[in-house]
């Protein structure tokens, strides 16, 4: 049995930032477990720029952003094992993992940081009718083929889903010589950043069809085309609007799912909306000593916010190991109406600092008011020029406010148009 103060599961931006922060807080014994062949996580294949504007104040590519943290992990001599798959965590915080050199690893941890990231929703989750021809894949899979392996998965492409990965891949495939016929989006708005619609679609005259989905896939061995159709306000295809589009590739960019198999198996409470753990302000789950951060907790749009959140979790895990994180009464947070979720879901009443609440809305708003209330009391009311489902928002609960709450109070966030 190996012993570490903190075991971090996942060596992407979340895991590295959490480990580095824990080290900065004085924890010597840290081990990062990474499934892939190197640290860096999904950033390694995100070769476009736009990372780091918030955190570093410069525009980096994914690999460059990751490299800044990989360098620090090496400088700080934080131990890590790559090509290593975590299999299970137990009630008493033992981590089981496996790799080719060590075989089965049994690691006793004082604290565990879950930083496994997320994966893409597959075709099976969408129930698209049609054949199982080759040429149907997630946008992230295509991204790996093009950017890491160096080959093109198709020549004539339809993309379903206008999240940022779908938009980025529309441009990437176009630059490498493919013809992207269109991007279809089920919703009446794109969940991607506006800048990506401009620089990935508009720049290349790629049409974006809103309230449109793929209803059939054609082709025996290889995809030969798809049928698309407009959808009504209940997202049901409208008969008579079907159109055939010839293509050899269908890329799916239809949402991300936090990878919480380990979390679920050990019985940690999950939030139905985020599909991530229910956590306190240090991102500790209801399983003592187990923390979660990054896309495994809730899907972020900017890696910079993953880094910041993971530093919070790293600090929390360090405090836990050092006996500084005491149990106290909680208050809970709750998104109301258009506010789909809030992270963290609970706050320790004896917290000594301010607490930032992150939330996401389910609709687009212009000049809306974000209201934070506790019972009848309005704590914060602020105007926002625009709110969109694709962009995470935050409000800060001042420590002075926290002090005034009774145990089991509920802080609610609402949006008024």
């Amino acid at each position, binding site marked *: 049995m190996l012993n570490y103060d903190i075991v971090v599961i996942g060596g992407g931006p979340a895991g590295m930032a959490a480990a580095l922060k824990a080290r900065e807080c004085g924890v010597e014994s840290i081990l990062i477990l990474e499934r892939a062949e190197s640290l860096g996580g999904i950033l390694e294949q995100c070769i476009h720029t736009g990372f780091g504007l918030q955190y570093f104040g410069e525009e980096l590519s994914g690999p460059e952003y990751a*490299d800044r943290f990989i360098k620090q992990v090496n400088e700080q001599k934080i131990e890590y094992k790559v090509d290593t798959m975590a299999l299970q965590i137990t009630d008493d915080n033992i981590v089981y993992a496996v790799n080719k050199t060590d075989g089965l690893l049994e690691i006793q941890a004082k604290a565990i940081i879950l930083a496994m990231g997320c994966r893409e929703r597959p075709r099976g989750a969408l129930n698209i009718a049609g054949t199982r021809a080759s040429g149907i894949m997630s946008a992230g899979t295509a991204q790996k083929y093009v950017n890491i392996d160096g080959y093109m998965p198709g020549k004539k492409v339809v993309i379903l889903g206008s999240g940022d990965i779908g938009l980025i891949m529309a441009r990437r495939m176009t630059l490498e010589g493919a013809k992207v016929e269109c991007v279809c989006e089920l919703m009446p708005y794109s969940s991607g950043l506006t*800048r990506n619609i401009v620089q990935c679609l508009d720049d290349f005259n790629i049409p974006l069809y809103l309230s449109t989905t793929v209803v059939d896939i054609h082709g025996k061995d290889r995809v030969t085309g798809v049928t698309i159709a407009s959808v009504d306000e209940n997202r049901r295809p409208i008969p008579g609007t079907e159109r055939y589009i010839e293509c050899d590739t269908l890329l799916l960019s239809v949402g991300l799912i936090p990878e919480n198999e380990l979390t679920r198996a050990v019985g940690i409470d999950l939030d139905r909306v985020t599909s991530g753990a229910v956590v306190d302000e240090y991102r500790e789950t209801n399983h003592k000593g187990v923390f979660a951060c990054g896309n495994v907790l809730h899907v972020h749009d900017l890696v910079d916010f993953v880094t910041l959140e993971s530093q919070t979790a790293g600090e929390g895990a360090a405090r836990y190991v050092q006996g500084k994180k005491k149990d106290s009464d909680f208050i809970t947070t709750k998104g109301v109406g258009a506010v789909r979720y809030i992270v963290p879901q609970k706050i320790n009443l004896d917290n000594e600092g301010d607490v930032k609440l992150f939330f996401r809305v389910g609709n687009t708003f212009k000049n809306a008011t974000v209201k934070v209330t506790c019972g009848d009391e309005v704590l914060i009311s602020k105007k926002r020029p625009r709110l969109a489902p694709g962009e995470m928002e935050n409000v800060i609960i001042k420590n002075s406010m926290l002090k005034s709450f009774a145990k089991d109070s509920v802080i609610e966030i609402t949006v008024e148009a």
Partner: protein
Amino acid sequence: MTKHITCVTCPMGCGITVELNDSNEIVSITGNTCKRGEVYARNEVTNPQRSLATTVKVNGGIHNVVPCKSAGPLPKNKIFDCMAEINNANAKAPIKIGDVLVENVCGTGVNIVATNHCPAK
């Protein structure tokens, strides 16, 4: 004439309005929330530019390609010419972040630099 532009400099995506007079000179730029937005809007109506991120073929590396980016913005109308030149280039492993892979791409004066390491196989 009025042109509506979405700034792509950062993820904020500000909506910027540029007013032009009859001789296509800029009269006013509004809607940007920082200085970079003004520069972007000015360029966008006179000489649109984009930065480029792509890959270069690698010989003898652990991967077939290494990611790269233009060290500065390129003229938007030369992006596909630049892609053609970059796709004809070959780099030799080992490669470090910042290594120049293509010099002065398409005579733009801009270098194409590696954005990841690629150790030799």
